[in-house]
């Protein structure tokens, strides 16, 4: 137990201490001592600030991410379950997936303005692809014997979706959602950097433009912490949703 804790915490502690020590006597204006950054962190990210800037960011992130998940899974199931639809849609999907999402920000700004809607659209337009393509793969790879079983017992329509297709594709869907989560965070920040009046990305750019360098660094650290927290939450959720999958895989490996 203690050994594991050491293993998990070891590297972060080493990195932190190294940064702290190496930057302690830094004269460089752009790379201030970590001491200063930490002090700025405490001063900057007050509860009022968190509410005014972090909360809107999280709301955009959450809305965009959930919408993308919903659209991605729904469309993915439809496409994955129909070979004809898949043949027609797959090249187009691969094309859209290949476009780097940040490129879309200026385009989307043109017709969606610079409000919250624009940010959500940007996040959705970037996140939906990994979810969609993974879902298609997952549905397509549904075991043939399992589908036959479901058909033989006349499990069709909504029941087929709920008891066969969704769970069968869930390992891949989760993999897609994991990729989408990091994309969502990136796009949240980028869209706020382009045009916004609040939010984490906006605040970090403001600090940079007003040469509040320790504050800027503190914002970047906060972003890192946020991403870490979200991915831990995701891991917990995955552990419970895919418990059967990990159990099954372990069982197969043992035999």
């Amino acid at each position, binding site marked *: 137990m203690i050994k594991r804790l050491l293993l998990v915490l070891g590297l972060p502690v080493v990195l932190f201490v190294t940064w702290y020590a190496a930057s302690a006597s830094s004269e460089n204006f752009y790379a201030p001592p970590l001491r200063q950054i930490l002090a700025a962190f405490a001063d900057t990210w007050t509860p009022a600030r968190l509410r005014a800037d972090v909360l809107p960011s999280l709301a955009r992130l959450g809305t965009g991410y959930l919408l993308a998940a919903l659209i991605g899974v729904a469309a993915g199931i439809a496409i994955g379950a129909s070979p004809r639809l898949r043949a027609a849609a797959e090249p187009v999907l691969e094309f859209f997936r290949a476009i780097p999402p940040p490129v879309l920000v200026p385009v989307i700004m043109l017709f969606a303005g610079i409000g919250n809607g624009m940010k959500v659209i940007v996040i959705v337009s970037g996140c939906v692809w990994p979810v969609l393509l993974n879902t298609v793969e997952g549905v397509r790879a549904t*075991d*043939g*014997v*399992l589908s*036959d*079983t479901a*058909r*033989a*017992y*006349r*499990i069709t329509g909504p*029941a087929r979706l709920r*008891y*066969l297709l969704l*769970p*069968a594709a*869930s390992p891949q869907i989760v993999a897609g959602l994991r990729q989408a989560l990091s994309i969502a965070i990136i796009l949240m920040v980028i869209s706020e950097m382009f045009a916004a009046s609040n939010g984490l990305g906006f605040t970090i750019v403001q600090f940079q433009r007003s040469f509040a360098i320790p504050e800027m660094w503190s914002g970047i650290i906060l972003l890192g912490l946020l991403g870490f927290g979200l991915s831990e939450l995701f891991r917990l959720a995955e552990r419970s949703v895919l418990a*059967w*999958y990990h*159990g*099954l895989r372990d*069982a*197969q490996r043992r035999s």
Partner: protein
Amino acid sequence: MLEVKGLRKVYRSGSREVEALRDLTFTVAAGELVCLVGPSGCGKTTLLRCVAGLLDPTGGTVTVDGTPVAGPPPGMAVVFQEYGRSLFPWMTVRDNVELPLRQKKLPRARRRELVAEALSAVGLEGTESAYPWQLSGGMQQRVAIARAVAYEPTTLLMDEPFAAVDAQTRADLEDLVRALWQRLGVTILFVTHDIDEAVYLGQRVLMLSASPTVVQDELTVDLPAERDQLHTRADPRFTAQRTRVYEQIQKAKLRRGNASGAAGELSSADR
């Protein structure tokens, strides 16, 4: 009652055609237990999938209880060979057995009752909340049998259900199938490649030819209704009938040897 008339199945892939089933006609009376044996690659699985309504035949008809089969018929349950892939790994044993009943819109109390009965009939009390992959292979196949039993089918199809379990488990499961059949009065079509198993289990044994498949011969098994592994298998009548089936299957294999090229194509047809 299960009637198969002139069943024919041709697989097409591009310009290549593989005739898996040529002309199959047989009847399984209501409450009868019939075993189908044939040389490996003779299209047994193709036949079973056609009967189950999972595969559209190229010609001929399948009738279950007077209704022509177009899609999986109600009142028919199927037990597949690959138990590991036919149970839903994301569901507990109880949910696996219960799911088809839910689909039949049975009330909750009745469902619970049927699940409990079926699990105890196959000797799996106490495993309700386990996941299938936590059980041994033989136990998983028992769950699949319990699912079929709980469904209260009039017809039960079994596709080489014991081909992947060890010999002792297999003997137990054979006795289980006979016991369930006698108790429930269900019509069973049992597909196997094991000649001993066919003679031991069946009231009748249908022998299939090599692909393109026809019914090559038929044997009404002359053994008492009460069978057990020790005495039945030592019975001279058992040995004699086993030999007869064996000879027919050998003959079928030999014929395939002469029909050149067919063997290679068959493995793709007989999935």
